[in-house]
């Protein structure tokens, strides 16, 4: 078993580390565009009786 699995990481963790590093290793002109994919955002809005009640961002 690989060391990272032993430490409690899974392939999803491995994959995101690998993807982030690949983006950072790109030539400078491509790097800024690629860096935008590092994070993803979710906004959740609760609706009640047709009106937005509360929204939160992650």
């Amino acid at each position, binding site marked *: 078993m690989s060391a990272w699995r032993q430490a*409690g990481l899974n*392939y999803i963790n491995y994959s995101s580390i690998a993807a982030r*590093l690949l983006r950072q*290793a790109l030539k400078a002109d491509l790097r800024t565009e690629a860096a935008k*994919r590092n994070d993803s955002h979710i906004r959740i809005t609760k609706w009640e009786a047709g009106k937005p009640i509360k929204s939160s961002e992650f």
Partner: protein
Amino acid sequence: MAALRSMSRLLMNRNLSTTIKRGYAEDMSFTFASGNQVFYDGQNVRQVDVPSFSGSFGILPKHVPTLAVLKPGVVSVYENEGNVKKIFVSSGTVTINDDSSVQILAEEAHPVENIDAAAARDLLSKAQSQFSSAANEQAKAEAEIAIEVSEALVKAAE
């Protein structure tokens, strides 16, 4: 005796037809996409070499159906016209189906010529210092992954 013979003929016929069916799969429909780009979409190619956790292997038409998890490294695509495209994949999966179609799905993938060798070396030394200063087992494991990935990046950028 006659019954036995006709039965064995039936069995033989079945074997024959399955062989012929597999024989049709001279083409390899290849699909390769990542989070940032679609490289191939059902295109016919001659051969594809992939780095995976079960070892690096080449895929030709009529390869046995396989699933594998990608390792960071270079995927080489041998196109029908003779060109070889080298694309670095961070991670993902490769699927080889019974009909000889192949799918590679990567989280991030870029042609090797887009990798900056100096940036890759920089990442490797950063990962190494991260490893030596890691406080707990998880940070150590993460740094270890970073070393593995940046080593592959440095190698690919050469």
